C-alpha cells in the first residue's frame, strides 16, 4: 500500500515581522497510510499547524518534500488534485463558512472544481447524511452551534471527494457536547468510510482515541507511537508543556509509590481494571 501522506526531510523557514528568520519545522519525516487515524499533539508554537498547512500545499517546503498519494506539493500542476484529496478543517468554524444556506456551503467545493449539478446534489446529500446534518440542510449556518458548524465543514470536505481530512484543533472553540460530536463523527468516518484522519489537538482525551499519536516539540517530531506508548511517557510530555491523561498520570504516580501495574494504562477503565 502506498502512503496517503509522505513527508521527507521537511524544513520550513519563514521571516517574521521583525525580519528574523525562524525555523518552524525541521527534519520532519512522516508517513501516513490509508485508513489511519493519527493525532498530532504539541505545545503552542511546536509547528503542528505549520505541518498541517504543508499537507495540502497551503505552505511549501523550504527543504525536503511533501507528497500526497505520490504527488509532490512543489509541482503546481498537482495543486488542485492535492487540495481535493486532502480536506482541511480549521479551529474557528465561523472562518470557513461561505454560504447563507448549509447545503450551499457544502456544495461550494464541488461547484468550484466543476462537478456536474446532479452529481453535486448527490454528493451534498450523502455528505450531510454522513455527518448527521441532513435535518439542517436548508438552515442558515450562522445560527448553528459550533459543533454543527464544524460538521458542516467536514461535510464540505467529503463533498469535495477528500479521502483524507486534516483537522487543526477542530474542537478548541466548542462546548463539551460539540467536542463529543466532532470526535464521534471523525471516528465514524474513519471506521465506516475508511477516511484517513490527521487530527491536531490540545485535548489528550481526544488524542487517546487515535491509532497513532505524533508528538511535536520545537518544530520537530520528538516521538510517536500508539496512545498507550506515548502517554506512558508522563514526565517527558510534561517537560514539553503537555499533559498525559489523568489515568496515565495516576498510574505513573502509583508506580513511583511501589504499585505493580501493567504498562500502557491510559483510560480510566484501564486503571480501574488494574487496581480492582
Amino acid at each position, binding site marked *: 500500500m502506498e502512503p496517503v501522506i509522505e513527508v521527507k526531510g521537511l524544513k520550513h523557514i519563514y521571516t517574521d515581522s521583525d525580519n528574523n528568520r525562524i525555523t518552524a519545522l525541521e527534519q520532519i519525516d512522516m508517513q501516513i497510510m490509508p485508513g489511519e487515524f493519527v493525532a498530532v499533539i504539541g505545545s503552542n508554537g511546536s509547528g503542528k499547524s505549520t505541518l498541517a498547512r504543508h499537507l495540502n500545499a497551503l505552505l511549501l517546503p523550504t527543504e525536503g518534500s511533501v507528497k500526497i498519494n505520490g504527488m509532490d506539493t512543489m509541482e503546481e500542476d498537482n495543486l488542485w488534485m492535492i487540495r481535493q484529496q486532502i480536506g482541511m478543517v480549521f479551529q474557528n468554524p465561523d472562518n470557513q463558512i461561505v454560504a447563507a444556506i448549509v447545503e450551499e456551503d457544502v456544495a461550494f467545493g464541488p461547484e468550484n472544481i466543476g462537478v456536474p449539478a446532479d452529481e453535486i446534489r448527490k454528493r451534498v446529500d450523502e455528505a450531510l447524511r454522513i455527518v448527521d446534518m441532513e435535518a439542517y440542510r436548508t438552515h442558515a449556518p450562522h445560527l448553528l452551534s459550533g459543533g454543527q458548524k464544524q460538521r458542516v465543514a467536514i461535510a464540505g470536505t467529503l463533498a469535495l471527494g477528500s479521502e483524507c481530512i486534516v483537522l487543526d484543533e477542530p474542537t478548541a472553540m466548542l462546548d463539551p457536547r*460539540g467536542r463529543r460530536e466532532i470526535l464521534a463523527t471523525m471516528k465514524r468516518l474513519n471506521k465506516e468510510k475508511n477516511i484517513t484522519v490527521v487530527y491536531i489537538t*490540545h485535548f489528550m482525551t481526544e488524542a487517546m482515541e487515535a491509532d497513532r499519536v505524533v508528538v511535536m516539540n520545537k518544530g520537530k517530531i520528538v516521538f510517536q507511537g500508539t496512545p498507550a506508548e506515548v502517554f506512558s511517557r508522563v514526565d517527558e510530555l510534561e517537560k*514539553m508543556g503537555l499533559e498525559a491523561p489523568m489515568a496515565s498520570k*495516576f498510574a505513573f504516580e502509583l508506580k513511583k509509590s511501589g504499585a505493580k501495574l501493567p504498562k500502557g494504562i491510559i483510560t480510566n477503565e484501564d486503571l480501574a481494571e488494574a*487496581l480492582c
Partner: protein
Amino acid sequence: MSIKLEHVSYTYMPGTPYEKEALKDVSLEIKKGEFVAIIGHTGSGKSTLVQNLNGLLHPSKGIASLDGINLADKTKEAKAARSRIGMVFQYPEHQLFAETVYEDIAFGPKNLGLDHDAIDVRVQDAMKFVGLDFETFAGRSPFSLSGGQMRRVAIAGVVALNPDYLILDEPSAGLDPGSRNAVFAEIMALYKKRGITIIMVTHSMEDAAQFAKRMLVIYQGKVIIDGKPGEVFLKEKDRLLEAGMDIPEVYKLADALRARGMRLPSEITDAKTLLAEIKKRKGLK
C-alpha cells in the same frame, strides 16, 4: 460591593423576524471577591449574560447595576462604574493592534485620561504582573510574539486599567496545557494578590472545577444551577449532561473505580485527594 442583575431579560433584534430572547428574567448577584465560572453550551446565553454584566449590552427588561449605579445610565457615575469592570474577550491576542507592546498596553490608561508618568507606571506594572520583561518586550511588535505571549500582552492591557471586576471569556481556549497553567497562574494572582473579582466564561469543566469558587450553569437563557463547583459536579451530573456540559476527568475516574468495586468516599473533587485515597486503599505510601 457587587454587580447585580434584577429580572434581566435581553432580546436581540426585537420586533423583527429574527427576534430572539437570549436571557429570560435572570436575577443574580456577584459580590466583590468572588471567583465565578459561567458554563453553558454555544447559544445558551452566557455571552449575552456577561455583556449585560459589564454594560456592553443593556437589559431589554430589568436592571444591571454596580453598587446601586445602573450600568445603562448615561451619567458620569455610570461611565465610571462600567470602567471598573474589565473584559478580556475570547482570543484576546486577535485584538492587539499597536506597533509596540508598550503602546498596546498603554492604550487603555491613555483613554482613561491619565498623564504620561502615570501611564508609564501602569504599563510597567502590568507587564511585570503578567511576567513580560519590560526591557525585552516593551519595544517589540506584539505580532512577533508567540501565541501565549500575545495573550499575556492582551491581559496586561486590561490589568493596566485596574478593574475591580474582570470578566474573561474562554481564557484557556486553544492553549496547550503548559500555557494554560501559565495564564491561570496570572489570573489567580489577580484574584488573590489584587483582590480582583473574576468572572470566567468557559467550556472547560476542568478550569471551572480547579479554579472557581462558584459556578453558574446557563441553559436556554436561564441560570439553571448556581453552586460550588464540587457540589454541582457531584450532585448534578445528569442535569449537566442534559445541558450539553460534562463532568471533570477526576469525577469520571473516581466513578470508574467505584464501578469496579473500590470503596471511595463520595466527596472526592480533586486529583490529589483521589490519588491519596487510592494509595490508602492499596497500602501504598
